[in-house]
């Protein structure tokens, strides 16, 4: 079930009403409602997907119980190994199997041997990468004794399948989310209203910004061979806002929905396009995945300990694995590798933790220096996005070579309706800039405006969503 579907607009009030009608002491019943709702939500795509999430939940629940009782190091390691193998095995089978078959065949053809491999007819279950990582982190945390294994099967199953963040994150840690399923919950007016604001802003980002930018980006990338460099650059910028609006919009909706049900999820985006260097960008983009890789891959590999060379190696590994996590295509690997390369100068000069605060604190405008740093960071991020968006690495190469040829200096041309998209994009960037110190741009906080003004702003935002919706596009991150 998509958030931006009519079904969801019927589903949500129903689940919300049932959930809050249950007295606050009946934690189990509340979790049963959430669990059933999550299974309906997920099964709406394809009921067969439910078997996977059930399998993953059963495996990790049982293994974690055994881990909790086991003190023998070797046996604990073995149990962890089983969990990782089964979880990653599922992920690799459904997501990467055909990729490996094709790559194997290509490698053979490179040595003059032609192969016509049989590909598997596999449907990629939506959100598999997200919930696999969530359950993995749970078992690893139990193994590391950071977390007691959950004794309540319903809470655990509800944690794995929690519908607001099930298919596209944020990837929650069991240490943060699981205890929330065990607490009594009373309805919180402020949280619910602010949650609704966050949902509204998420829909604006997705439907008005991402879907409209997608129309321009698709027009340009689908015809890249006949586009001048200037248009291809515009295409990369539009894709940058498409993917940001799409993914951070989804995260806002997920976090807002969770707040309505009394849960707090972690922030996933923190205005990444206002970053002053690539390291800051990665601290602000898809935070839940970056921190996952930091905690479960980078640090176990040694992190920054053991010298510069090891730090560089580990950085490259997490960027490349992170790229590959996005999908079975060399373009994602190249995107990850390119980001690691862009990171390299900062690491070598120990400047990767320079910009930890938000730019231009308590000022309306950034300094000229900061402005230039923001722009240059945004431009290199856009170049990296070209690999993410392109069908093949060769396509990305052609696009970049066209951008840096003289046709870059021709005037880009837009269709009439695209000016609306550009207009709202500018408004969007302004709103985000003015509210960059908040958790999300529409967060009320200490709003200096009268109530009627705020209400008018919400009504106008909702009307703009209805009227200026782009062609409905699937959330990009559902495919990952």
């Amino acid at each position, binding site marked *: 079930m998509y958030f931006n579907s*009519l079904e969801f607009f019927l589903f949500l009030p129903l689940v919300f009403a049932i959930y*809050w009608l249950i007295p606050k002491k009946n934690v189990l019943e509340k979790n049963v409602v959430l669990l059933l709702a999550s299974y309906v939500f997920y099964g709406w795509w394809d009921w067969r997907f439910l078997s996977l999430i059930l399998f993953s939940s059963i495996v990790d629940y049982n293994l974690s119980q055994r881990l909790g009782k086991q003190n023998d190091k070797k046996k604990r390691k073995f149990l962890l190994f089983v969990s990782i193998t089964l979880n990653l095995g599922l992920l690799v089978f459904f997501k990467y199997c055909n990729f490996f078959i094709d790559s194997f065949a290509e490698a053979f053809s490179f040595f003059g041997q032609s192969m016509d491999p049989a590909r598997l007819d596999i449907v990629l279950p939506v959100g598999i990468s997200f919930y696999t990582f969530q359950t993995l982190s749970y078992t690893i945390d139990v193994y590391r004794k950071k977390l007691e294994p959950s004794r309540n099967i319903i809470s655990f199953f509800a944690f794995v399948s929690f519908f607001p963040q099930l298919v596209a994150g944020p990837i929650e840690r069991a240490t943060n989310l699981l205890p929330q399923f065990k607490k009594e919950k009373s*309805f919180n*007016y402020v949280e*619910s*209203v602010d949650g*609704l604001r966050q949902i509204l802003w998420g829909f604006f980002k997705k439907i008005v910004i991402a879907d409209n930018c997608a129309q321009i980006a698709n027009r340009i990338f689908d015809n890249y061979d006949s586009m001048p460099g200037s248009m291809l650059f515009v295409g990369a910028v539009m894709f940058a806002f498409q993917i940001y609006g799409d993914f951070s919009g989804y995260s806002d909706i997920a976090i807002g929905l969770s707040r309505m049900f009394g849960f707090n999820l972690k922030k996933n985006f923190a205005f990444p396009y206002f970053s002053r260097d690539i390291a800051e960008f990665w601290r602000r983009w898809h935070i839940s995945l970056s921190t996952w890789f930091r905690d479960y891959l980078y640090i176990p590999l040694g992190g920054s300990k053991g010298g510069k060379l090891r730090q560089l190696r580990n950085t490259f590994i997490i960027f490349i694995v992170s790229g590959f996590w996005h999908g079975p295509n060399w373009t994602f690997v190249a995107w990850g590798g390119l980001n690691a390369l862009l990171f390299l100068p900062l690491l070598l000069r120990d400047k990767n933790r320079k910009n930890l605060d938000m730019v231009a604190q308590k000022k309306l405008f950034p300094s000229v220096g900061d402005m230039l740093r923001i722009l240059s960071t945004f431009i290199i991020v856009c170049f990296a996005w070209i690999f993410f968006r392109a069908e093949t690495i060769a396509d990305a190469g052609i696009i970049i070579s066209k951008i840096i040829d003289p046709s870059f200096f021709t005037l880009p041309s837009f269709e*009439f*309706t695209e000016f*609306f998209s550009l207009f709202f994009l500018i408004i969007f960037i302004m709103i985000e800039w003015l509210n960059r110190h908040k958790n999300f741009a529409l967060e009320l906080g200490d709003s200096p405006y009268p109530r009627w003004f705020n*209400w008018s702003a*919400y*009504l106008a935002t*909702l*009307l703009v969503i*209805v*009227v*200026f*919706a*782009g*062609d*409905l596009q699937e959330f990009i991150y559902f495919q990952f």
Partner: protein
Amino acid sequence: MRKFLLKISLFISIFSGIYLLFFYLVQEGIRKSDYQDFAQWNEIYSGQINSDVIIMGSSRAWRQVDPQIIDEKLDCNSYNLGIDGYHIPMQLTKYEIYLESNRLPERMIYIVDHFSFDKREDLFNKIQFAPYFNDTILTKRLKSYEGYKWQHYNTPYFQYSGSKEVALAGLTESLGLKDFKSNKFKGFRSKDQSWENDFDVERELNPEGKRAKVKAEVVNEFQLFLEEQKKLGVEVVVVYSPDYIGFQDYIINRDSVMQIYEGITQKLDIDFIDFSTHYLSQEKDYFYNPTHLNSKGAEIFTNELTSMIESE
């Protein structure tokens, strides 16, 4: 919770009011607008056409048969009901809608081709139908295609979602801020363009040619329609419009399609004019693609066609 529900209800009520007002303005604006294809649909629904001669067909009708020439040569009032991108079923629906508000024509020129007996699965340019969901004849037909779903028919404004330019056109028309002008004359608009090379590329890609789809239910629907028109006293002439000679052998089953037309027209004793061997079909200069005449070709074709009808 009570405060939350009250505020939410208030917010939803206010928004619903604004939303419905907005929908009303868009819908009413579009229903009186000459913006794009709505101009023709509004003309049809207004019941002010009442033509003596109706031209039917797909884009081969609205791009190629000029009512102005017919009016002058046959001293009548003609109108082109051709609908872009659709086969016979939707063409017949458009005519049925026309008859809801306009009188029966005396004569009908039905432009056909080898594609006519197909029925597409999706709706092409579906936004053109959005303002008229109150017409059951139209919605019944629309539901036989993929494109609009339950929510589009039953939720205000849903049919316009994703079509911001149409919504704005309707709104500006309603508020009197803009007066759009129709880009067709009596349903006709020619294309002043020389030959496109797309077909040459397609031919290279498919050297063996292509098979035209013929659906039995569409053939049957067409035959029943012609029979009915004949009974009603409408003088029908079926016209196979020119297609470029270099294209004719590209359609593998062209002869069998032609036999269907000949069979039906002979059976019902209806005139059938075939332009396949006409000199227009021999020259690329008259076409902008293998199945569509350009302005120059359309003018000659309408003149020739009118002369043939006049002489019969």
